């Protein structure tokens, strides 16, 4: 926060303490401090409650106040799920034309396989809703909400391996070390809540553990931004936030008493030393105490109706499942969390497309669709942006042998894939852009990863070229030196 304003706030606080001495409950005092430390912030345009962002943000009126990114880690097969290409069935088993392949590189998983036979979709496609969007029968619930979705079918990216591609999508760079999208947005826009972290990450994987992708912490790292902007990874078991629970044998009442005295003793030291950091520390301890109450309340689903729970599917009560995380995402959105990154691993079907794709879809279809329906019925979809998608697509040709149907697979494919968006500011029922007749290269209205990033930032009221941070002498930004806002996606 602004040091001058902070100084002002301090001064008032000291006077306040001086007058009221220790008459009042210190708890009440301490919570006042918490509020007051952010008092200057409330005057700023970018926030009313919570934690302030930068003074000149948002750059323009935002359509979305928060983002839920449903990240499908491992890369779902666009040609089996959304990008219907009759040509694939027609040419099933035949070589994909060289002109389409164009000597492009793939992962070394394909080393030793020179054949590139077309693999027809293993699913059945149909058109749905008023928008007549193509969705495969593996995703019946998603098919039911297509008129709320905005499909981008012409995505493309740079990297051919998971970690670099995910890092690229989330941080704008293939190499780890840059701030992730959530860090940029919370740095720029601050938070609407004091009681929960502004940027929350939740991870899950498929039940069968069919692929071993790891969730690296740089997927939600703050890079060179201060570490307070890094995503807080809610754990899939035990306390969602590390060290949230009081130690065994210390009740909330005992803790309250300790914190009251701690605040009082720190205040004495503050009067002696005058360091404004001490006041911040008092406020942060108070916030920690609040978080100890707000997180358990957050994870308590007992007030959710049976209908709501049923919508998310049977796994919703299992902490650490995708369904659980989707419901948590809605609850976090309600409580003012700025950026919610839900990551689900299990889409990497190199050799088990016929068995695993269905399982992934079963795990994720209902919860993803339920989240959209749930946000909508609560009026939250109006200012919440939801994005569903992976780090790239999968090859329209086969990895494996055509006669070995059990081991059919598709390799990594950065040249064309599909994501969908929904909610604040995006046009519902739109199918934007397209790939070629093989689903191979994005050809019409191509959307690069940097374009997607620029677009997300724009919906949040942020000009991607103006949200910068100077590090190592350069003004860095999420989109590096690229990115065009795809205005055609806006409602």
């Amino acid at each position, binding site marked *: *926060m*602004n*040091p*001058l304003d902070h100084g002002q706030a*301090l*001064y008032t606080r000291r006077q306040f303490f001086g007058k009221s001495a220790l008459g009042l409950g210190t708890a009440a005092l301490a919570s006042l401090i918490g509020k007051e430390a952010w008092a200057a912030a409330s005057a700023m345009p970018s926030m009313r409650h919570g934690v302030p962002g930068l003074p000149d943000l948002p750059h323009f009126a935002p359509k979305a106040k928060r983002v839920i990114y449903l990240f499908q880690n491992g890369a779902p097969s666009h040609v089996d799920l959304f990008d219907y290409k009759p040509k694939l069935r027609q040419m099933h088993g035949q070589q994909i034309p060289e002109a389409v392949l164009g000597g492009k590189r793939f*992962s*070394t*998983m394909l080393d030793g396989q020179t054949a590139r036979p077309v693999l027809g979709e293993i699913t059945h496609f149909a058109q749905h809703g008023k928008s007549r969007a193509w969705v495969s029968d593996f995703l019946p619930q998603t098919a039911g909400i297509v008129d709320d979705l905005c499909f981008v079918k012409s995505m493309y990216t740079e990297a051919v*391996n998971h*970690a670099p591609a995910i890092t690229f999508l989330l941080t704008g760079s293939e190499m780890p070390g840059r701030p992730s999208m959530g860090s940029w947005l919370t740095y720029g826009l601050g938070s609407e809540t004091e009681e929960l972290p502004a940027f929350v990450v939740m991870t899950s*994987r498929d039940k069968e*553990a069919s692929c*071993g*992708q*790891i969730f*690296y*912490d740089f997927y939600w790292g703050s890079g060179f931004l201060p*570490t307070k902007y890094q995503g*807080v990874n809610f*754990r899939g078991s*035990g306390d969602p*936030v*590390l*060290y949230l*629970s*009081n*130690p*065994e*044998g210390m*009740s909330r009442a005992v*803790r309250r008493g*300790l914190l009251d*005295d*701690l605040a*009082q*003793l720190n205040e004495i*030291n503050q009067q*002696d030393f*005058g*360091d*404004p*950091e*001490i006041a*911040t*520390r*008092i406020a*942060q301890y108070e916030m*920690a105490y609040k*978080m100890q109450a707000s997180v358990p309340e957050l994870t308590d689903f007992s007030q959710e109706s049976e209908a709501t729970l049923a919508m998310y599917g049977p796994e919703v009560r299992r902490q*650490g499942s995708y369904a659980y995380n989707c419901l948590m995402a809605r609850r976090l959105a309600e409580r003012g969390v700025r950026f919610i990154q839900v990551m689900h691993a299990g889409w990497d079907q190199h050799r*088990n497309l016929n*068995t695993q794709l269905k399982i992934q879809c079963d795990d994720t279809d209902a919860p993803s669709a339920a989240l959209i329906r749930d946000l909508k019925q609560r009026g939250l979809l109006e200012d919440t942006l939801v994005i569903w998608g992976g780090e790239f697509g999968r090859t329209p040709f086969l990895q494996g042998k055509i006669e070995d149907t059990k081991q059919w697979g598709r390799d990594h494919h950065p040249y064309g894939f599909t994501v969908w968006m929904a909610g604040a500011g995006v046009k519902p029922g739109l199918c934007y852009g397209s790939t070629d007749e093989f689903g191979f290269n994005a050809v019409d209205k191509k959307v690069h990863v940097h374009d997607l990033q620029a677009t997300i930032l724009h919906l949040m009221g942020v000009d991607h*070229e103006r949200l*910068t941070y100077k*590090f*190592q*002498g*350069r*003004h860095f930004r999420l989109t590096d030196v690229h990115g065009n806002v795809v205005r055609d996606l806006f409602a």
Partner: protein
Amino acid sequence: MCPVWSSSRFAFALALGVVASRAETVDFKRQILPILSDACFRCHGPDGEKRKAKLRLDEHDGLFRTVDGLTVVAPGQPTESELIFRITDADPEEVMPPSDSTRQLTKTEIELLRTWVKEGAHWERHWAYVAPQRPEVPAVTEAAARKRVHNPIDAFVFTRLAKEGLTPAPEADPATLLRRVSLDLTGLPPTPAELDAFLADEKPDAYERAVDRLIASPRYGERWAWDWLDVARYADTSGYQGDPDRTMWPWRDWVVNALNANLPYDQFSLEQLAGDLLPGATTEQKLATAFHRNNMFNGEGGRIDEETRVENIFDRVESTATVWMGATFTCARCHDHKYDPFTQRDYYSLFDVFNQMSETGRGGNGQIPPVLDLSTAAEKAAVAEAQARLGATAKEVDDFEWKKFARAPGKPLTESDADKLPGNLPRYIARTEPRKRTVDTLLEAVRYFQANDPAYAAVLEKLLSAVRVKDEAAGRVTRVMVMDQIKQPRETVVLAKGNYEAKTETKAWGAVPAIFRPAAGAFAAGERLNRLDLAKWLVSPSNPLAARTAVNRAWQSFFGTGIVKTAEDFGVQGEPPSHPELLDWLATEFVGSGWDVKALHRLIVTSSTYRQSSRVSPEMAERDPSNRLLARGPRHRLPSWMLRDQALAVSGLLVEQRGGPAVKPYQPAGIWEEATFGKKTYQQDHGEALYRRSLYVFWRRIVGPTTFFDAGVRQVCSVKLAHTNTPLHALVTLNDPAFVEAARVMAQRVIAESSGDDARIEQAFRLATARAPTREEKGILRGRLKKLRVEYAAEPAAAKALAATGEAVRPADLDPIEHAAWAGVCLLILNLDETLSKQ
């Protein structure tokens, strides 16, 4: 607090300060060059390929040239200067920077530029690329301040303060000072005995002798190793998929020993960069080169070896540039630097130096050749034993399987037979010999068969555990990854956009960056430099940055912020030094002393500048929030690793065993499992290993130790310290068993060592803060103690639980209620801002 804003605001204040103090001229280096760089160099700077209108403003000739009758800058004549004309042009098509640029000039900046031209347009090269000249130590004129000058540091700082109309703060009281310097030099607080001795020492050099004692302590090397481990991106695993364990700890111990032995910084650098190439290199010198094998290593399935190899070299080039040149080389990987005079050729010249080792990019374990074998007989015996156990278990599995899969005993199924089985997993299992199976597949297999063949799953689980034991034993055999040199040098070419596949025709060979060549003498004679040559140049007088970056990092560790705040960037886009003469004086002093690190640290901590009280008035807190002017002593929250060490020390739990393999203290259950899908299990240590210093805590790269916050991530080279302040940090020091156990053991200590509530409160308070509590403070703590007694008397089970936190023994005869009440008080004391801070 938002450090970003406060810093930019203060940078502005600093600049204004300069204007006010020398109203007669604009300072090119500090006021003009940063504007030109930030607003113009992007298109009119060092990057030849992207340069617009062939106009170059970062070099003298470009800035002052005349083309077609137009002079870019005409000294003394703003109206004749095209530069001034263009930045004030009313035509939006013509104005510079272009009207759609995100960087626009402010009115103040335009005025500064105009004034600079009017005053004669004095130009000089960016300070960092000119060798430091030893400045004269200024005379402090103000009498009171003059008396306080203890060494030249003070002369520089105090004259600057005088210019600002400020005076230094009084000296901190002795107890505060001893705590501050003990934490800074050894990472541990003073013991009560040390404190008593110091307070009783009335000799005038009491402080200096305390400093000497601390610097001579072996704890000194353990404290300072931490900062270097951040620089070196040291960790106990490789990172990325699989995140295999490494045995790099002998290098960590090398660093501790080198620091304790006060190995001169030039030699310290030489040995780590090229110890293997020194004539008659010793094992220790070869071990030192593990420095550049501490980078992450991507062994992800599907990776292309060459891509990994090239990325590793990128990391080495860029880390080297950051540490010894304060240069941000990453930009030059793909194109000439936009702001600093480094070309892409320069980048690949350094690349060539690191391109000559035998690493291939292949390999997925944590001991990728070349390695230095430091294994012991015991380690090898453990592997042999584990192999034997695995053999026996594999036999059991085989006995089970040849019935299950109908195959010959001792022989796996052939591929075609295996393919007849349903599912991928049984197929894999059946055609792989039991002893050759991996943890990953066995994990899957156990899960898979648990449902349909529990007896088989049980056998496989046994095998899994035997494989794990074998892997672990093999992983513990000490082999340290080090550098080597191939005989037939590789040819290096510039890679377009840094893409390992996009080889250009442009060759590059080992050379000093062009900007430094004019001063580099023999290093610039045109011979292809190898690693040793480069290392020698880096610590030679012709590199103007090795000493500056080193003293700046030291300064940052003591004062929280470097003299150059952007410790990672000394280039034109970095922040100019707050005290340029002091920086150069320290740099030349450091080199003159024979790169004596301990002498440098001694010089800093014995200065009056360092010894000032850290009390701050509201006016100064407002005027200089981050204390860049140094009108007071440093005050910061301690690094999180030091907080843990401090808690261990004050409770008496600390076990001071030095060196050896990493240890695994408390960590919440499931952290590794969740991050690695159950492939890695955290096996917490017990006994003394729980209480070793943080330096020795095992660092899994993809999910670092949970006790530490604001720490370097140990993924890439990090030279910057973080001091953020969040609720999550409070949760650690309030609830992490490491801290709660320390509090309850600290309670045991004060109960045993003092008698009566007052004495115990005093002892606990003094252990943590090095001072006695005031009456008011004592009153609050006594009140809390009484309440806690009441609360715990009502909840005896809770008392028992709290008093039993952790694995340390507790006296059986100690009343749990009394113990818990005191544990609460001690936990409170450990969380005082004063305890958490260096004050």
